[in-house]
């Protein structure tokens, strides 16, 4: 087993990884940019190396500096977390070249899954169902129209180089194809300097489900059920759960089979996630594979009773999986809510500042993953995800009620968060009955919906009145004192005037 691991990340995920390391008796090495000198991951680690100025490209994305720090510290392995260099095949390769274990899949697996069109082809060839559409890039509008006829409308025109909801366009009417192809190509050219597009069938009101995979270097690949992540806002996941309320035991088996095939097709090793688009009828299609640990991995951990980070480290160290597919058992239900420093009243504008007070939810079934502490200043350079609350309960209904209880307990001062929005989201009828899809939030959310409790309006008025009363009273007293002082000063001056001149 490794004696020392460098964690090439920051925030909650860096702490998450270090906690598992500590529990395994492995020393931890943090890297940090200028503005992160006092970040929690720096104080939590056994060793900390400064790697540059705040912008990510100069620090957390600077592969050479990170490898350098690993060598200086004597670390034997690098855990990339998620984001930053986690899905960078060149970095994975550079680690191996430098004699450092990369705690993730081989560079080849990352590359094969990194290009969307390539991944589609590999999956298709391996018998994993992909969304019907073009085999490769589509050169012209007529070609696109042909594919649309083949797979049936609606279709989606997608930029090969697109991502994060950019460079895609839905076409519902055959007459609109020409224009959509033109526009997407133009956009893709200017946004990604790569005008290539492809065509896929558009799945209406889809659900996002994903299968957790673990594979070791000895040929074992196993799956740990699904997570549903359809509560999204602008392609950003907001709430995740395991198991999915829409996945039956049969579908779970089929999804798991497909995920296993997908992972094996690229020689996958480590922890990874195969994402699927699931239609309302339960049919599902390969979407992509995330070749790393997911933000939402804890929901799987709590229902299956595993520690995915420890498994990652064990796998990277060459150990065989001790888990067996047959003995893995789902218990209860888990939810994760993501706490973002952003203002749901102001178009989710990110918020920064000093955390003045922080009281986390606690008690039965509550797990917190955080990268902040009271007194910490949230910098402007990185992701606004400041924490996650993971809830476990015997069943989904209890888990939802427990999540509400936890969000109500959350006290964070100094920055604005999306907690109100999360309370709204977990109370939605479409969430409660499990029918929600990836467009649910954009269809239903309006900031005006956040304020609705009339009893609370009175209470807010009373509290604010008392708060203002105390402050105004003090201010008025000091104004009065000042005024009195002024009177005295004036009196003194007058007395001075009255004094007989010497």
């Amino acid at each position: 087993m490794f004696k020392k691991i460098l964690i090439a990340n920051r925030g909650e995920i860096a702490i998450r990884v270090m906690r598992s390391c500590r529990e395994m008796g492995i020393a931890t090495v943090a890297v940090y940019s200028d503005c992160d000198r006092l970040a929690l991951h720096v104080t939590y680690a056994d060793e900390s190396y400064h790697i540059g100025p705040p912008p990510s490209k100069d620090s957390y994305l600077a592969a050479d500096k990170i490898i350098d720090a690993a060598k200086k510290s004597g670390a034997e392995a690098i855990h990339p977390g998620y984001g930053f260099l986690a899905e960078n095949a060149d970095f994975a390769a550079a680690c191996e070249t430098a004699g450092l274990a990369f705690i993730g899949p081989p560079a080849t697996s990352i590359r094969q899954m990194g290009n969307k069109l390539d991944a589609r082809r590999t999956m298709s060839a391996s018998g994993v169902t992909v969304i019907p559409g073009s085999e490769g890039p589509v050169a012209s509008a007529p070609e696109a129209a042909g594919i649309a006829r083949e797979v049936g409308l609606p279709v989606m025109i997608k930029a090969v180089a697109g991502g994060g909801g950019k460079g895609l366009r839905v076409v519902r009417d055959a007459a609109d194809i020409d224009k959509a192809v033109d526009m997407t190509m133009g956009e893709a050219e200017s946004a990604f300097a790569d005008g290539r597009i492809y065509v896929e069938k558009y799945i209406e009101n889809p659900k996002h489900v994903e299968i957790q995979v673990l594979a070791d270097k000895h040929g074992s690949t196993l799956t740990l059920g699904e997570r549903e992540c359809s509560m999204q806002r602008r392609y950003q996941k907001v709430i995740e759960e395991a198991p999915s309320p829409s996945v039956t035991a049969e579908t779970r088996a089929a999804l798991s089979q497909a995920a296993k095939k997908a992972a094996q097709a690229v020689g996958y090793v480590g922890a990874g996630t195969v994402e699927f688009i699931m239609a309302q009828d339960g049919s599902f299609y390969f979407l992509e594979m995330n070749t790393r640990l997911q933000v939402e991995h804890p929901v799987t951990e709590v229902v299956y009773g595993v520690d995915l980070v420890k498994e990652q480290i064990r796998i990277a160290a060459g150990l065989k999986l001790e888990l067996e597919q047959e003995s893995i058992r789902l218990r209860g239900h888990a939810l994760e809510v993501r706490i973002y420093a952003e203002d749901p009243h102001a178009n989710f504008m990110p918020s920064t500042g000093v955390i003045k007070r922080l009281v986390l939810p606690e008690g039965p079934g509550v797990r917190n993953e955080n990268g902040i502490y009271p007194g910490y200043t949230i910098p402007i350079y990185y992701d606004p995800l400041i924490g996650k609350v993971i809830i476990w309960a015997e069943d989904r209904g209890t888990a939802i009620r427990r999540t509400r209880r936890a969000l109500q307990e959350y006290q964070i001062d100094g920055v604005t968060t999306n907690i109100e929005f999360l309370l709204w989201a977990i109370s939605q009828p479409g969430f409660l009955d499990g029918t929600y899809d990836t467009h649910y939030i954009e269809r239903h959310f309006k900031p005006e919906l956040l304020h609705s409790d009339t009893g609370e309006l009175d209470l807010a008025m009373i509290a604010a009145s008392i708060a203002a009363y105390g402050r105004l009273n003090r201010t008025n007293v000091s104004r009065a004192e000042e005024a009195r002082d002024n009177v005295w000063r004036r009196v003194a001056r007058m007395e001075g005037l009255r004094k007989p001149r010497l």
Partner: protein
Amino acid sequence: MKLWVRIEAQEKLVEVSERDGIYSVTLDGDTRLVDCRSAGHRDYLSLIIDNKSHLVECAPISFEDGRYYANISGRRYDVEVLDERLFATRQATAVVKDMGPYVIASPMPGLILDVRVKIGDPVKAGSAVVIMEAMKMQNELVSEIDGVVKAINIKANDAVESQTPLVEIERTE
């Protein structure tokens, strides 16, 4: 003390007095005795009213403007509380505010990515004027009014602090 209290669309006159830590609060002609104390931190108020217990995080956003927020079980309310002096000030400045130049300021520290207007450009309410990046996200700063760009204080790639005036827009009628 007489207070003008506004929350969401409602404005009410509230009467507050205090004796031995128990507040008498009159709202809508209804007087309630409120046992109110700070719980561990000045901004966290524990209120017991008719034996109902409430924990409210409440503090001024801007004391001089009488702007407060109250956070109840994760929900945040903005409340305006004015005493006679502040009420008079508001009455006097309300008119002026609607007449002066309109300034778009940075809501948070960040990096200016793009300025979408030039001096003299006409601007429609709701249109994006400046794109700024903060915390890995691009944010559009939009004009709330129709007008003409009068001044631009920044350019692309400038790093700005919170509340920096970025673009000034002159109202068109």
